[in-house]
């Protein structure tokens, strides 16, 4: 083994040991804040791992979503929970009495740690047995993908799988995003953001970084057909910018009229569906792009998806439907 190989092997070993150690801390740390910080660290470690395992697209997604956005969501939920004062804050449900019930009196007993440990040991033993017996070399579908991508003029094979070969999965996945927004909005209005959040530092930082982030998002989208990147990574970049703006007290969606917000959320999935259905109209299968226009169609789908994803992620972070929403959810409208 040469020197570089040795360094790599040592690096791998360190990461392999660190991952479960940090995970243990994230799950078991006595202090919840510390647990969240360790969880964010775990996400960054995983992103590093994806790089080591030759998965740069996953690394980008993990760093932005799995670590960054999840971290922001967890921290804001922790802060909201801390602000919740039972009694003072208890909202009477706005639903008729006959639709609601008090929480059940008798309920479940927590599982004992011993039983849980037993279950976990069985699961880990079985999985270890399975993983070690897998063949140590397996091509998977890599040769098949390599055979098909040249036809499509898409050098990024992951984008090819996500948007073309398995585009249907991705359509449903954007459906999951849309569904998550519907679910969050159906749960009620967004809580009041904390008043004292934005210092002048953050304000200035966002002012400088914001335009750069928009540029990066555009680049990730454009380059994503040939280099690591794509609609999700770009959309998350926009979403992250929105979250930063929210933190700085400049709520990016608050000024949008309700219909514009809803249009932005829905347009990505709707355009994806429309492209799919148009293909049926042309006598092809659903989402079966014609050879000559495949790349252009994919870019079009990705561009609208990016905007929807960005807006959806900011909406998820807001934690409820916007106060400006005049969607008929005010009392008396429906």
């Amino acid at each position, binding site marked *: *083994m040469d020197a570089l190989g040795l360094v790599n*092997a040592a690096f*791998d*070993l360190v*990461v*392999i040991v660190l*991952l*479960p150690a940090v995970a*243990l801390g*994230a*799950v078991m740390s006595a202090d*919840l804040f510390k*647990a*969240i910080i360790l*969880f964010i660290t775990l996400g960054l470690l*995983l992103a590093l791992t994806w790089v080591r*395992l*030759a*998965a740069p697209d*996953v690394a980008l*997604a*993990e760093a932005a*979503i*799995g670590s960054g956005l*999840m971290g922001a*969501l*967890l921290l804001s*939920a922790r802060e909201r*929970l801390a602000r*919740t004062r*039972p009694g003072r*804050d208890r*909202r009477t*449900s706005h639903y008729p009495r006959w639709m609601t019930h008090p*929480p059940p009196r008798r309920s*479940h007993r*927590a599982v004992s740690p011993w039983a*849980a*440990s037993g279950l*976990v040991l069985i699961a*880990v033993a079985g999985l270890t047995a399975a*993983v070690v017996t*897998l063949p*140590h*070399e397996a091509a998977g579908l*890599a040769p098949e*993908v390599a055979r098909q991508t040249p036809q499509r003029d898409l050098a990024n094979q*992951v984008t090819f799988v*996500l948007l073309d070969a*398995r585009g249907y*999965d991705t359509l449903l*996945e954007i459906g999951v*995003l849309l569904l*998550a927004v519907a*679910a969050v909005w159906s*749960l009620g209005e967004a809580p009041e953001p904390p008043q004292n959040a934005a210092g002048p530092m953050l304000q200035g930082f966002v002012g400088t970084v914001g335009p750069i982030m928009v540029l990066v998002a555009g680049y990730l989208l454009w380059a994503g057909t040939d280099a690591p990147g794509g609609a*999700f990574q770009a959309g998350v970049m926009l979403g992250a910018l929105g979250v930063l703006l929210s933190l700085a007290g400049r709520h990016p969606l608050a000024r949008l009229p309700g219909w514009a917000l809803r249009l932005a959320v829905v347009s990505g999935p709707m355009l994806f569906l429309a492209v799919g259905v148009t293909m049926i109209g042309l006598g092809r299968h659903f989402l079966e792009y014609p050879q000559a226009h495949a790349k252009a169609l994919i870019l079009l789908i990705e561009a609208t998806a990016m905007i929807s994803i960005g807006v959806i992620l900011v909406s*998820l*972070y807001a*934690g409820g439907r916007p106060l400006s929403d005049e969607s008929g959810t005010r009392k008396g409208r429906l």
Partner: protein
Amino acid sequence: MNPFLGYALSGVLLIGIGLYGAIVYGHLLRKIIALNVMSGGIFLVFIALARRAPGVADPVPHAMVITGIVVAVCASAVALVLSVRVAVETGQAALPGDHEDRA
């Protein structure tokens, strides 16, 4: 040497740790963190196995894991919003019968 096996076994440990936390801890944020650790472990197994392809990595699991990451964050976002509503309604950040453990 191909490091896939080490990473895959590390992923298995992550799954175990996450599962344990999700079962044992009562505080809702802890449960959600544990679930995400668990899915991180599953993604790790997935990507590690994709590294066994000679030369390049298999891009199909990469695409599936990106899908998985997005689905996981969506579900977590809904779970977090629900947790806050539950705390507002019931006064504790745990499900009935569970304890908040340590904050």
